């Protein structure tokens, strides 16, 4: 796989993401936000961090970076994009994904292990995961409280766009297992074209032997299967 990772000023999970893909034998390219080309990738990663210091709203200013024009063009052609944490926020602010990430209900920055459940296998990223699979994937954010109006929420449900929900260790999706007040425990969604995934949890922080949870490997294995062995 060829994976391009975009670094915005303030991104801080770009090298973590690149390292995971590189260690799994994939070709990675670091793309600076002022670049104009994506280097012909199979997959683009918008990494976590604090692009533009989270000024105004998280992800709001990144959308004016020169590379985003090419990113939108890539997206419209059906190119695959994965936005993690701040990357998810950038995707909503750019209009490539619906909804908004608001401040956590508890007002605090949350950095902890969190169980999430695969809700839809109808995406290139989860096609090779069984719905109901529970994964321990860390979260680290202050603005991860997903919000969309009632019409938008119904559309997400009707079109099977909710890919991950926060749950407990047994897979129960309820208020107690919701870390940030996110609507309907939403942790990750896909666009209607099913080529752009945004998720608040960090699978790249749970995919190397040196960390507590290895569950992110399940996710990356599934992504690899899709890209390397076809749909």
């Amino acid at each position, binding site marked *: 796989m060829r994976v391009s990772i975009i670094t915005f000023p303030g991104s801080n999970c770009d090298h973590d993401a690149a390292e995971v893909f590189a260690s799994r034998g994939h070709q990675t390219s670091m793309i600076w936000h002022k670049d104009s080309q994506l280097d012909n990738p199979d997959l683009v990663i918008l990494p976590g961090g604090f692009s533009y210091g989270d000024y105004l709203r998280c992800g709001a200013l990144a959308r004016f970076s020169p590379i985003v024009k090419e990113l939108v063009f890539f997206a419209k052609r059906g190119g695959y994009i994965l936005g993690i944490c701040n990357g998810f926020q950038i995707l909503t602010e750019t209009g490539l994904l619906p909804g908004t990430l608001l401040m*956590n209900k508890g007002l605090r920055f949350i950095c902890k292990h969190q169980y999430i459940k695969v809700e839809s296998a109808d995406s290139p990223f989860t096609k090779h995961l069984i719905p109901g699979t529970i994964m321990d994937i860390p979260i680290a954010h202050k603005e991860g409280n997903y919000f969309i109006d009632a019409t938008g929420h119904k559309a997400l449900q009707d079109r099977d766009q909710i890919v991950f929900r926060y749950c407990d260790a047994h897979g129960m999706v309820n208020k107690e297992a919701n870390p940030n007040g996110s609507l309907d425990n939403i942790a990750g969604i896909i666009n209607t074209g099913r080529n752009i995934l945004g998720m608040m949890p960090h699978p790249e922080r749970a995919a190397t032997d040196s960390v507590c949870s290895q569950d992110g490997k399940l996710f990356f294995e599934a992504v690899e299967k899709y890209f390397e062995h076809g749909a």
Partner: protein
Amino acid sequence: MLKAKIFVQLKPSVLDPQGKAVSNSLSQLGYENVIDTRISKYIEISFDSKDKSQTTKQVDKICTSLLANPNTETYHFELEEL
């Protein structure tokens, strides 16, 4: 010169956790008649222009394209001559 005084507010349907926290603090301070608090953003932008009509259009565009997120926020503003 014109100065735009812009308020960006969360829509009433959107939960405002900061406002809730302030309400709770006010209640602890003894202000028992406080029903609700909403936190907004206040932004000032100065323009080298005297044309109120044109600047109004410009501020509208600035608000819809950047300052307010239409999913969750509304805005209003006033122009002041300096």
